[in-house]
């Protein structure tokens, strides 16, 4: 029963990421997009929980949202993979269900 979790809110403004990390079980996938991409960046106050998440979840970030906000791929936390829109669709299709942490 694999779940794709998606987070599209800034971790500094909402608790969507916190809740997601609390409830997502090991081995599930997490895709950060829209304002959720800020959680993927190095050097932030949420880098530590994100590094922990990378160790137990498959973590992805949507490239076009990263680029729109002015960040290159070298700014993201080690272990997070960049995907495009087609990759987003593949992740959703491969998963049994999608949980969107709005």
């Amino acid at each position, binding site marked *: 029963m694999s779940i794709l979790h998606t987070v599209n809110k*800034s971790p500094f*403004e909402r608790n969507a990421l916190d809740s997601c990390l609390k409830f997502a079980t090991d081995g599930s996938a997490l895709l950060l997009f829209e*304002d959720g991409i*800020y959680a993927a960046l190095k050097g*932030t106050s949420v*880098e530590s929980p994100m590094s922990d998440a990378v160790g137990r979840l498959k973590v992805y970030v949507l490239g076009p949202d990263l680029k*729109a*906000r*002015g960040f290159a791929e070298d700014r993201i936390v080690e272990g997070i993979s960049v995907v495009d829109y087609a990759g987003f669709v593949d992740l959703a299709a491969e998963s049994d269900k999608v949980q969107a942490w709005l």
Partner: protein
Amino acid sequence: MSEVVKKFMYLNRKAPYGTIYAWEALEVVLIGAAFDQDVSVVFIDDGVYQLTKGQDTKGIGMKNFSPTYRTLGDYEVKKIYVDRASLEARGLSQDDLVEVAWEDFETEEEIDNIVEVIDSARVSELMNESDVIFSF
């Protein structure tokens, strides 16, 4: 124009693109420029993300309004402040932010970059000194 000059503060707390706040704030600042007031534009919390360099929105099909910040100096905005603690919590520094030049067309006084990173206590002071705060 009105003879009373008030201190207007535009306080930005939201990241760009995810919501409409940042774009709306910018529109209001540009419209407000017509009223010859003493304007400061302040970026705190996720608002600091509005000023990141190198934004490229082609991939998300939205208008990139980031270049507009660099024209604020031409709209008589001379004071742009960024909260240092907000930058640091997000792993950012002034090097990650756009520069906004300013020039007085009468005196030819020029400032290369009016974006100033300040402490939170200074942000509080500026808020207290303002007559009006427009919050976005």
